Structures are given as structure tokens and as C-alpha cells.
């Protein structure tokens, strides 16, 4: 009897799922065809985030949920934390289930697959705080549902690392250590930032300076891709005294971090990611300056104030405003394309704080949900803007430039 009831229940379950799948037809995405921006209907937008716990991801979420969602008739559906391409695909499936008309992606395990999936499902797809590789862009730029990308290109990542190292080299510092973040996992943006740092050192290191025989940017990048780590030693007159990569966070890794910071003679620790949280306390004791690439979060402000952090190239939370507008426009039937009718691909860099005052000034604006860096009034200008205006707006990403945009 008991077994029979169970079997019947199981069969009912299977049947109900099969019938539901077979019986219902798929819904088509509706698109307004008259070119007018009808914003009366609430638009659901999926946000694909791989790590929900980083300062950067949380700042971006705050801007979307606490500001944009209240200003526009949109609802953001956030993905759960994910670790691989299967997680991305699964989250996109969930967005499609939720009738999201568009997806803004912060995750990059398999961008090509994300794009294909969204195109197939007729869901607009946009890349935030990143760009596609040239090869990928050439392949997907004509896709109907590919909105485009706004964020730092690999070239800009390289420049960020270069500028960071140059800032200290110009001051005469010669002894560096590098925290490579996800370099051992071959994360391109981290490799490019490190390449920028090393190239700046080669340039400053004197006539015969080289990194493991590499002298040019491309050669350095190739070396890093091959090794998956940074070699310590001399680059002409400049010294790379220590290197730690990865995020193992175990006792051995912590010991490595500590010993690197306490290397005799070390002056500067250049981190491709969050440097102050992992090294700040130890670095302050050892009198080592820490430079990071991350976001404008409160804890980094505290670290800057407490001299645990000396330099910050940070993404500002409102930087994801323009890609939202481009995506929203697409869902309203007014997609934005470049002059050739292709998806947009715009470079947008970091706000660089070289001292505490600068940091606090940027943070004040960045953390505001009443008057963030990009307010609704500013973004509204982009709703019907042509490509040139949009591009100019995005490219004026520096703090001072944004102040000149005005409302």
C-alpha cells in the first residue's frame, strides 16, 4: 500500500512536469516597433554576478537596486553566486524563466556561450565593467540581441597597472612586490595589469632592463601567460622582491603574504586586486605602501585613512549606469548601435585616488544613493542620445570630467 502510494505520487509528479513542458507554448519577447520609448511597463533585467561578496559587486548592486530601480520602471533579478560556466548558463535559464527582457553580465566564465544563449532566447545581453576580446566582438557585433559592452578593455587594464607602477617609479621607488590575484588562474585582466606594472619597471630600469628576457609589452604578456606567475629578481635597477598569487587563504598562503610584506627593503606592494585587506595590517607595520585595484568601499577608505592603503584605482559604482541605459533602451525598442550598426564597445576606466583626500571625495559621491556620480537626469540624456553623444558621455568617466557633464 505504502509503496503503491509512493509510486503513484512519483508517476503523478513526472507526468505533471512532462505535461507542463509539452503543453505550454513558448512566449515571444515583445518589442515596441514605433521607436517611441514607452516606459509604462515594468522591465525585468537579470544581473549575472559570479561573486556576490566582493566590495565591487556589492557597490554595483547597491547602485542598481537602491537607485536605478527606484528611478526607472525596472526590476533587477540577481543571480545567485556561481563558480563556473554551468552556473552561468543555469542562471541565464533562470532569468529567461523569469521573463527578463535583458541580462547585464558581470560574469565571464564563458561569455560566448552567454551571448549565444541570450540570442537564442531573444533576450538582450550586455557586458558590464568589461569588454569582449576583439575576436569575440567581431563574431558577435551583429547579433540582434547583443547590446554591447562598457568597461575597461584589456588595454585599459594594462594601462591601469602601468600607471600604478609608474606613479611610484616616478617618485624614485625601486623595490617592489606584486600581488597577482587571479593571475595563476590565467584571468586576463589580472595578467594585463601585472604586464603593465612590469613594463613600467622595464622602462624605468635602465638601458638593458628586461623581465626574464622580455623587453616589450607583448613579450611580457606572453611570459606571464606561459608561466602563470611572476618571477622575482632584478629588472635593471628595479627590484621585484616578492610575488604572491592566487586566493588560497590557507595558513601557507597567509604565511607567504606575511613574509612577502616583510621582505627587507621592500617599499611598495602593487596589487592587481584587493591589496589592503590581505596585506594592509602587515604592510603598515613594515612601512610598506600598498596600491590596489578595486572599488570605492568604506573599508578601503578606512585603510586609506589609516595609511594601510596608498593608491587606489577603483571602479565607481555608477559606472554601470550607461550600460544599463543602453540595455534598457534596447528593451524599449530603441537599441543603440555604433556608426556601423554594430553593438557598442566602449572603454571606461577607473577613478584613481592617490591620497586619502581624493579617496574620500570620490567615496562620498560613489556611496551616495541620493546623488550618485550618474544621476537619473544625467542618464536620461542617454535614453535618446545618438552613438556619438553616448560615446562621449561614457568616455568622460574621470571624476572631474563627470562634474563637467552636469545635470
Amino acid at each position: 500500500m505504502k509503496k503503491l502510494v509512493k509510486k503513484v505520487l512519483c508517476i503523478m509528479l513526472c507526468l505533471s512536469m512532462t505535461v507542463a513542458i509539452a503543453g505550454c507554448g513558448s512566449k515571444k519577447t515583445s518589442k515596441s516597433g514605433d521607436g517611441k520609448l514607452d516606459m509604462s511597463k515594468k522591465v525585468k533585467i537579470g544581473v549575472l554576478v559570479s561573486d556576490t561578496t566582493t566590495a565591487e559587486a556589492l557597490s554595483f548592486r547597491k547602485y542598481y537596486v537602491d537607485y536605478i530601480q527606484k528611478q526607472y520602471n525596472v526590476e533587477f533579478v540577481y543571480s545567485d553566486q556561481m563558480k563556473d560556466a554551468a552556473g552561468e548558463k543555469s542562471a541565464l535559464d533562470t532569468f529567461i524563466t523569469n521573463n527578463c527582457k535583458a541580462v547585464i553580465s558581470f560574469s565571464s566564465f564563458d561569455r560566448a556561450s552567454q551571448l549565444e544563449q541570450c540570442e537564442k532566447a531573444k533576450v538582450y545581453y550586455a557586458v558590464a565593467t568589461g569588454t569582449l576580446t576583439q575576436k569575440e566582438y567581431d563574431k558577435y557585433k551583429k547579433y540582434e540581441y547583443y547590446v554591447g559592452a562598457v568597461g575597461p578593455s584589456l588595454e585599459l587594464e594594462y594601462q591601469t597597472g602601468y600607471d600604478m607602477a609608474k606613479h611610484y617609479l616616478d617618485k624614485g621607488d625601486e623595490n617592489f612586490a606584486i600581488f597577482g590575484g587571479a593571475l595563476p588562474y590565467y584571468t586576463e585582466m589580472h595578467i594585463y595589469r601585472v604586464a603593465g606594472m612590469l613594463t613600467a619597471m622595464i622602462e624605468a630600469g635602465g638601458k638593458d632592463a628586461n623581465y626574464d628576457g622580455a623587453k616589450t609589452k607583448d613579450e611580457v604578456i606572453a611570459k606571464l601567460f606561459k608561466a602563470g606567475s611572476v618571477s622575482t629578481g632584478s629588472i635593471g635597477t628595479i627590484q621585484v622582491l616578492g610575488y604572491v598569487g592566487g586566493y588560497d587563504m590557507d595558513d601557507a598562503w597567509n604565511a607567504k603574504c606575511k613574509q612577502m610584506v616583510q621582505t627587507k627593503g621592500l617599499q611598495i606592494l602593487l596589487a592587481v586586486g584587493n591589496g589592503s585587506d590581505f596585506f594592509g595590517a602587515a604592510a603598515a607595520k613594515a612601512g610598506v605602501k600598498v596600491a590596489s585595484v578595486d572599488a570605492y568601499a568604506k573599508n578601503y577608505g578606512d585603510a586609506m585613512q589609516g595609511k594601510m592603503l596608498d593608491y587606489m584605482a577603483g571602479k565607481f559604482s555608477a559606472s554601470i549606469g550607461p550600460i544599463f541605459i543602453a540595455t534598457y533602451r534596447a528593451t524599449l525598442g530603441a537599441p543603440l548601435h555604433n556608426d556601423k550598426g554594430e553593438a557598442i564597445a566602449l572603454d571606461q576606466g577607473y577613478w584613481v585616488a592617490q591620497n586619502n583626500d581624493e579617496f574620500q571625495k570620490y567615496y562620498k559621491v560613489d556611496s551616495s544613493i541620493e546623488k550618485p556620480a550618474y544621476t537619473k537626469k544625467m542618464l536620461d540624456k542617454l535614453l535618446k542620445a545618438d552613438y556619438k553623444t553616448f560615446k562621449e558621455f561614457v568616455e568622460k568617466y574621470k571624476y572631474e570630467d563627470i562634474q563637467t557633464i552636469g545635470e
Partner: protein
Amino acid sequence: MKDSGRSMGKRLVGILAIPVGVLMIILILCGAKGIRLFATEGNWIAFFQATATVMITTIVLSINLNSGRFDFSIGSISLLSSVISASICIRFGLATGPMLLISIIAGAVLGLCSGVVYVLVKLPPIIISLGITLLYEGAAFTVTNGYGVSFVANNELVSFPSVFNYIIVIVLCLAFAIVVFDHTKFGYDYKALLSGQKVAVETGIHEVKNAIICYTIAGGMMGIVGFLSATNTGTIQMALNFGSISIMFTAFLPMFIGGFIGRFCNEKIGYFIGALTMAFVSLAYARLNVHSSVQQIITALLLVGFLIYLNNEKVIKNIFGFRKRRAEKNYEV
């Protein structure tokens, strides 16, 4: 008297063979590469910090695991208790002493809750601990809005790491564990339940009370681990979807080493020596710059190798004994 001396010598050899053996191998490897194992003060601090956290985690793991209670939640207790204590201390400007105290209390309360749920719902502890882990990780995330806690700039709170402080923590925790588990009624009951649950209960030992106390002590001690980890870097990173359980895996090898050494001395001292051994290994990984994948393989092989020895000790001894006898015989011939 002579026998006693021999026995004492044998015990000392049993206690020290593993850590000294491991240290010798490490020193030889470091020597071959021209590296000093303890080159800076930072190396000493890292070594004692690892010894303290691994020792306490091992004791905590063993408290419940020895009683057949597998507890995935110890990492999440450490996470949430440190989040609570750090948040309170930052808000009210408290120093490290209060932070440690709050961590212990928060950990004990969280452990208590975990124990109460276990005895109330009477589900296997492994299941309860899965639910509790998710619950506490979620709570830590919610309390901090996902940002975690960072106090790198708080000179007072990050001033804790020092060899002296870690030694004090190690000594106090070890003494506490030895006294509570070996010299109190609770400890005797615990051991009775450990060796024969049914018989112990039938003789009137209050199993529920004992289990709840075990969870509370384990929680309090994980509060200390949370405190040590947080003050080591000045930050508490969030973990979701069982991200906090990895800390538990660091304790298995020292637990088995400790179990073996425990034959020659108090088991808790065995755990301390197990943790000390692992701290040597961790420091060696750092000094020799061993790649993390190689570290994982070496640690796993050490674990398996040691377990193979422990579980086949008689067979191994027989083989060696046999060879010895045969060698003697051959000599006679």
C-alpha cells in the same frame, strides 16, 4: 626504576618522533635550497598563528567527531562569531580583549543553538550541521550586507598577532581542554558516552546535557579561531554555499597525528603536537614557495600515508618483526 626510565624514553620518542622527523626533513629541504625556515619575525608569527588555529580546530573537530557526531558547521560558527565580535568592537570602539571575549561568547551561544537543535530534532548531526552551516553563513552575510568586516585600519584590533599572544592562547586552550575533558564529571561522562553510548545512558548519564555542553564548548573555541583569523589580517571575508567548511579539512591530519601521539601522552597534547607538525609543513610550503596544487597533493598523501600506517600498524610491525627474526636466523646460520 630502569623500566620506568625506558618507558619514559619510549614515550618521549613516541611523542617527538613525528614532529622532529618532519622538521628534520623540512630543514634538509630548506638547507638544500639555501633557505632559512625561520628567517623573519613574520615567519615565527605565522608559525604560531597556524599552530594555534589548527590546534583549536582539531580539538573542536575531535570533541564531536570522537563521539560520532560529524559537524560541518564549525567553520560557519567561527565566521559568524568573529563577524559579531568585530562588528560590536568597531561600533563601540572596544579593544582586542573584549573582542576575544565577545567572540568566545558568541561562538558558545551559536554552538549552544546548534546543540539544542540537534537534541530537539534528533536528526543525525551531519544533517543538522549542513542546515546550521547554511543558516550561519547566511546570517553572517546578512549582518554585514555581504561586505564582510574589515578593520585593517584599526591599530588596536590588528595588534594581536604576536608570538607571545599566540603562545598564551595555545597554553590556555590546551589547559582548558585537558581540565574540562579529563578532570571533570562532564569529561568522565563524555568519555563514558564515547565508548558506550547505550550503556552510559542506561547508567544514568545525561546524554542530552553532555551533548549540548560539547557543542557549546566547541562553539566557544571556534569563536577563538574566528578571532585569531580575523585579527591576523584585519578582515573577515564572507562565505556562502558551504564556503566555510574548508577550515574543517585542515584539522583531519593533525587529528590523526594527535590520536597516534595520544598513546604516549594526553590526547589533547597530541593534537597540539599534530598542529605544530602541520604548522612546520605550512611554513615550509611558504618558505619553499610550493605551488598550491603540489601542497594539496603532498598533504593528501601525508594523510593517506599516515592513515595506512595507523590502520595497518600490526601488519606493518609483523612484516618488520618477521624480517628482523629472519635476519637474526640468517645471522645464526
